[in-house]
């Protein structure tokens, strides 16, 4: 919301009709709550009953269209086992968004999700958009975490919250798109031009000039 009020001040952004943004998103949560399955559903539209366990982290990408903006996600799907925890900062460092996943049929995984939220709020970039996903909605008959409890927790900690099912695809697209909507959109061209500014010192001419130079490659 605040991002839209800003358009004029930085120069650029308004020139092209469709913009491209890149965001780094990380998935965190206990082992076998369905992090990889959520990503697989989102990226490839597939679901495997037995998704290979993730080692370290898996890297995937996906692009979604939000209004006139193309949002590119750089997704880091991390391993859930406790001892991989110490590697997590490597993946959530610099991430603009995170999905913390728990399994609605597993109370313990909800507690673990809360510690992840805490860690992110403490260690990750301060304006990171965090979404809480109660996965395995298809197992609602084995539910151990009530919707209200999780919703209340999410509201208190200002998280996006949805119950999802990678198996039935329920809410999977929604959770990613609602994250995309919440992220501040700055044009990738602008980013690229700013990056090049950084390397070559400062170009006093402002962002607009640079934008023309780099837009060709960055759009593709």
């Amino acid at each position: 919301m605040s991002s839209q009020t800003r358009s004029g001040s930085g120069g650029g952004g308004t020139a092209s009709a469709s913009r491209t943004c890149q965001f780094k998103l990380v998935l965190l949560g206990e082992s076998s709550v369905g992090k990889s399955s959520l990503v697989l559903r989102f990226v490839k539209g597939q679901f495997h009953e037995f998704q290979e366990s993730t080692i370290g982290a898996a890297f995937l990408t996906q692009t979604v269209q939000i209004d006139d903006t193309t949002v590119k996600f750089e997704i880091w799907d991390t391993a859930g086992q406790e001892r991989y925890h110490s590697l997590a900062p490597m993946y959530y460092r610099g991430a603009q968004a995170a999905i913390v996943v728990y399994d609605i049929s597993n109370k313990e995984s909800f507690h673990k999700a809360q510690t992840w939220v805490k860690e992110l709020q403490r260690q990750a970039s301060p304006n990171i958009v965090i979404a809480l996903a109660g996965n395995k909605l298809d197992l609602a008959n084995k539910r151990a975490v009530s919707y209200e409890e999780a919703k209340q927790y999410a509201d208190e900690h200002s998280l996006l919250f949805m119950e999802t099912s990678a198996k039935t695809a329920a809410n999977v697209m929604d959770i990613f798109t609602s994250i995309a909507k919440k992220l501040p959109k700055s044009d990738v061209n602008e980013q690229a031009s700013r990056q090049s500014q950084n390397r070559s010192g400062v170009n006093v001419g402002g962002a607009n000039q640079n934008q023309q130079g780099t837009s060709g490659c960055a759009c593709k």
Partner: protein
Amino acid sequence: MILKIDFPVKQKEVTKFHHQIYLDLLRTLPNNVKFSSKYSQGVNQLQEVLQVFCLHNPSIGYCQGMNFIVGISLLFLEPEDAFWCLVVITEKLFLPHYFDSGLVGAQADQQCLKNLIELKLPDLHDHLESLELDLSSITLNWFLAIFIDALPFETMLRIWDCFLLEGSKILFRYSLALLHMHKNTLMENNDTISIFKSLKYSVKFTFDIDGLNKIAFEQLEPFPKRKEIIQKQKNYLRIKLESWKSRRLQKINQDIIEWDSENDEQNFHLKIDCSSFVDGNFVWVCYGGQMEGNVMIGDLEMKKMSVQNIVTESKILSIVAIEEFDLVLMGLLSGNLIGFNSVNKEQLWNLNLKDSILNMLSVKAETNFYRLYCAHSNGKLTYIELDSDKEPSEIFDINVSSSPIEWIELVIDDHEEKYIWLASANTVYVYNERTLLNETKFEVSVNQFDHILMLKHTKNGVLLSIKGSSIIHLYDYNTYKCKLLFDVKLNLRLSIEKDDDFSFSRNRLTCFLSLDNNLIWFGTGDGYLLIYSIEIYEQKKIDKLHKKFSLNTQIFKRIMSRRNFSLATDFNLDYIYHERAKLNVKRRDSSLPDKFLDKNSKKEMKKFKSEFILKDISKHLDVPSENEFKINICNNYDLEYKMDLLTKAKISDQPVRTIMSKKIGDEIAVITCSGNYGEDETVLKWSQKDKNWKNEPFIEMCPITNIPKRPLYAKIEYFQNLKNKKETKKFF
């Protein structure tokens, strides 16, 4: 046979990992017929082997990734052999601590790989470095799972053959070969996503085994010898292990503190965040919760302050005043930059800079022209030109780092050249203030997860400290070397920086300030204010050589550990130094602290020649040359710093948040803010009277009625006065 053992159900080691193994059984090579269902033979064997391993080596137990290693082995081996294969891989071929808690071994190998990339593929290394891109998020998997799933199956098996024969060195060789092979593709790309994507897919389709072997064993020659690699691995392992331990300690401490502060938060949540002098006689103090920022303004003369009718949409993280324009600028958590008129306190404009503004700096360029720098949590620096109190139009961003920039400091060197020092994570970035070119960057600690709290320019150098620590560092602004380490908690000069000194503590520094007359003020997390004097001694020439030695070891140690080269010699030397020192202490009084050691070691170190030290270390180093070290030493050790504690006072139960000073006439006034809004005596004014520093609290007044709101005694006093006045009036 081993595998026929019936596991006692209560066997602690097994049950601990049993669940995780169970979860992963059907998630291992699920597309292979041998592992496709829970009735498959392979799945049972997999379970058996993994469980036996947990019994065999409970300290490693089960780590995700081992399921794939055993799964692949079981395609070719009987379960018993697969078990021994796992034992050899985890206990012999990989570094210790590869798979156990923290995975430090695996992380150390990544550091090692990075070092080798820099050595063998410097152009790629530079390219990645310029994008601040860390390949280990991809390459870690290559090592942990020995290329399973990263390469085509055939190619992976070939590497496995070599790996089982030669050990983990081969993984470096092949990793470099793969990067070499696909280097051009990687170099063509200039953004993170494309690089990771192209790396992942081009590696996944590396079917040309012979081509890969050719690169690995011919083109990469001369490849570092096994011994060298092992030495590198061990050194990185040592560093990683230390920092992992300290991180764990830190985490425990943090949890305790968090628990404390959560309890506190129920009472007070309006933390004081920042403050600034405005128009000579006023001080603006910003406080607030996550979703709102408030301002109170204090009158320096009257020592009265009142809450203003200024409420911002989120926390105010930084505040800067430009008196020439009657302008006060506030940087918010939401990323908004708000301009206020300092006279009528009205908002002039509100500008969204997209990301939280953690710190700001204004530099006067010429009359009626200021440059404002805003540090953002996304690692960007925004440059803004201000020529009036109007909303600025000249704005652009500079990418500095991928971590938040926590502090900006203006540093003026001996030639009056202005630089801005930016603190981001554990790195200081130095930019030329005029050209905005990046001059250099340097790390101030070994642990990359450290964050610099703040920087302060003083005429002796730049002071900095790391969040959570009670140690102050003094950096030379010409050489960027650390000249002094001092632990405020222990009131002790440190010779060597230890990693675990940085564990989060209640006595941590929260802010500091340097005054012109060589005084340094510190505020701590437990509400203490400490005033130190810093003195400089010039070394006499005769003494110089000796001095060099005692400091050399410390400085070498520091330089090395900072740059991640703690190498054997350095260690040995340090060891000798300590051993000798220890002996001396034993002989005399063992309770004497640091200073004593320094003296002794000075004598001891006479025996070593400077050349010897330099040569010996440079033999093991490939990067810094002898000369470089010599320069560092010669420049620095003519001066010796000494810090003396003058005053220590408890001023709050909460952390001291800000300290700032201003010259009013001939006097220096220091303002400290501590704790939260709503507590008594949060804002104090300090002034010097006969060498002693005295403080006077600001009394908060109700802005409407102008009656003191708090503290209580002030209220009583006020009404008492009022009563007296009335009575005297009556009397007349």
